[in-house]
């Protein structure tokens, strides 16, 4: 039997007894390419960033998926009602579905609210009734009555539906606009997505769901959704299974780390911002592992599945959990520095700037000039979800440290004392072949071979890490907004 895990895929491979060893991508030291950006970084964010673009596209014909939205996004939505009445003046009522609220199951997940709503670029105001032009937001609660309880039928279309479980925006266009044209497709808004639960370090739920962009809470919301979708008629069981699945101590450390503030100047003077936020959206089917990948990538974090529980790890330096030396290494390490020509040295990240009211796309870059002088520019372009410039810069610097600054990987075959290691752990290595004495390494992949008639052996791909991978200070002030 052989088991194989790697940081890139979180995969686990078991082979039959006597079935021979299986390497990771296939061993020899170079199987796992850190430079893909998929080691909880740039590459894994691409899907989330693409999803954020999808929800800016107006869907007029129905049939679209109702997205699962966390944090703030610019959304066009799915047109679900358009009622135009000729008259003096004309009236135009538009109802747009923004995304799934409590309809995703579990009696939670309603949205926080609308930040700003625009028609053809003009800001609309909140309408207090069914006759004044403007917008009215519905959070996506499960409706219990037409004119009572949460998510009632909207006054703009009082004979219509409540759109139970769906976050919607109902708009009555201003008279001048309705007289000029009859188009529902110029509606855009910036909205705050799902309210989610918080938990303490023992897994006890803390109060009611509340709006949060903490990636740790987002990850648990999807984990809870997994069990709620699996057991839709037994939410108590779903909650219990979720609680059993999480290593709460590590989760709480990660959550506290994300929400802790750091100092940064967004262009209006230095202030405090949350260290990591997740403005993440899912627009299609996705399995739990991929959802975790995308959520963790926005925070530079890692997740591990130890066989029974999910462990979340922040990007901080952690204590080594194992020491490799000649007494437990079975064959000499194979050392492979990444070829300089394959090592990115110019990193570019595109992202939606959270501090821009319209979430416009901007980019940041990190260069390694010493490497560029040697081999020229080897660019690596990534796309992050919406975030503050500070977060994008810190994440990109972390990618550069992973992919450019620490190029040496090492393949080690060791005895069964290392069977507890998981990708994402830190270890130390002392061995005369690479000349290492307590060299700190990141575990990239694990392959465990077990046989009923012999000792278990473990093969690892490690990455030598010579400095911290993450810094709170790897950011610069944002250019202040200027008036032309």
């Amino acid at each position, binding site marked *: 039997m052989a088991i194989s895990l790697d940081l890139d895929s979180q995969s686990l491979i078991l082979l039959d007894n006597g079935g021979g060893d299986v390497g990771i991508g296939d061993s020899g030291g170079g199987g796992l390419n850190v430079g893909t950006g998929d080691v909880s970084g740039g590459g894994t964010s691409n899907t989330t960033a693409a999803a954020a673009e999808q929800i800016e596209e107006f869907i007029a014909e*129905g049939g679209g998926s109702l997205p699962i939205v966390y944090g703030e996004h610019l959304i066009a939505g799915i047109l679900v009602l358009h009622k135009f009445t000729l008259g003096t003046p004309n009236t135009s009522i538009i109802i747009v579905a923004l995304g*799934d609220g409590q309809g995703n199951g579990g009696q939670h997940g309603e949205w926080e609210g609308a930040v700003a709503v625009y028609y053809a670029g003009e800001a609309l105001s909140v309408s207090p009734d069914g006759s004044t032009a403007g917008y009215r937001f519905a959070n996506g609660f499960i409706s219990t009555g037409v004119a009572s309880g949460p998510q009632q039928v909207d006054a703009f279309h009082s004979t219509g539906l409540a759109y139970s479980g769906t976050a919607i925006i109902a708009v009555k266009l201003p008279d001048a606009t309705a007289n000029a044209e009859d188009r529902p497709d110029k509606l855009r808004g910036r909205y705050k997505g799902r309210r989610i639960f918080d938990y303490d370090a023992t897994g006890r739920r803390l109060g009611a769901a509340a709006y949060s962009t903490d990636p740790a809470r987002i990850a648990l919301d999807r984990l809870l959704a997994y069990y709620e979708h699996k057991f839709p008629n037994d939410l108590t069981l779903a909650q219990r299974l979720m609680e059993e699945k999480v290593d709460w101590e590590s989760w709480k450390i990660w959550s506290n780390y994300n929400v802790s503030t750091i100092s940064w100047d967004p262009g209006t003077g230095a202030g405090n911002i949350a260290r990591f936020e997740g403005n993440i959206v899912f627009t299609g089917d996705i399995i*739990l592992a991929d959802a975790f990948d995308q959520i963790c990538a926005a925070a530079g974090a890692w997740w591990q599945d130890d066989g029974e529980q999910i462990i979340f790890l922040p990007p901080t330096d952690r204590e080594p959990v194992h020491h490799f030396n000649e007494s437990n290494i079975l064959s000499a390490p194979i050392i492979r520095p990444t070829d300089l020509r394959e090592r990115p040295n110019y990193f570019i990240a595109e992202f939606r700037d959270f501090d821009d009211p319209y979430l416009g796309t901007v980019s940041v870059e990190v260069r390694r000039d010493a490497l560029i002088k040697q081999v020229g520019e080897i660019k690596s372009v990534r796309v992050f979800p919406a975030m503050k410039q500070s977060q994008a810069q810190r994440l990109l610097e972390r990618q550069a440290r992973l992919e450019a600054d620490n190029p040496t990987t090492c393949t080690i075959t060791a005895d069964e004392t290392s069977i507890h290691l998981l990708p994402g752990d830190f270890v130390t290595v002392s061995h005369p072949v690479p000349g290492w004495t307590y060299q700190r390494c990141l575990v990239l992949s694990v392959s465990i071979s077990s046989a009923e008639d012999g000792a278990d052996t473990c093969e690892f791909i490690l990455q030598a890490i010579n400095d911290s991978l993450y810094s709170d200070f790897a950011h610069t002030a944002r250019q202040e907004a200027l008036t032309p």
Partner: protein
Amino acid sequence: MDLLSRKDKQIESHTTLQVSINNADLTRNYYFASAQLMILGATWQPQLRQGSQIRANLARASDQATVDLQNVDTEIGLEFLSLGSLLYGSTAKIGRYWRDLQSGVDFHKVLLTGPIVGLQVDEQVVRVTAVSEPYANLSVGATRRAALSCQWNFRDPSTCQYAGTLLTCNFLLNHTDGCEGRHGTPLKRAKFGAFAYLSSKSRLKTI
């Protein structure tokens, strides 16, 4: 771990499989290993013939475990077949067990937990297939669509919330076999889980 790091160790090791069925209809646990074992008070039957097999590739394919249990006496096969659909979705735990032959100290580590997704029975073996939970084919993404017909699971207590005597629904808003017949007017307009105006005047006007 201390056991494994001892230099004078003489260890036997085994693969283990635990199958847990826990739902409203049945609660049952099965314990199998490649030798008869006592772990945490449970007896693990020596029916496991072939070590687990889990495969994944670097493109994030499902982690999958395949475990062979002996079925020469056909007992396990008949037992699992009698469970029918209850077996699918039950939880499998695949692990390794180590025991120091000198001191008797033992150690058990679960390597994969996830739902059973496949069962194959022949006269030699019962082959059980499981996937690890994060890779189970159960979407946690956007699953509901903007559609005309109601998408709630009928009688789902958190969405549809119908708790009457009728046991079927055709998911249409104004139909006596649908929302009208279950929730009635006007409550159906609050309870309906879809977008009935999609095909009326809601389409984008092209100028």
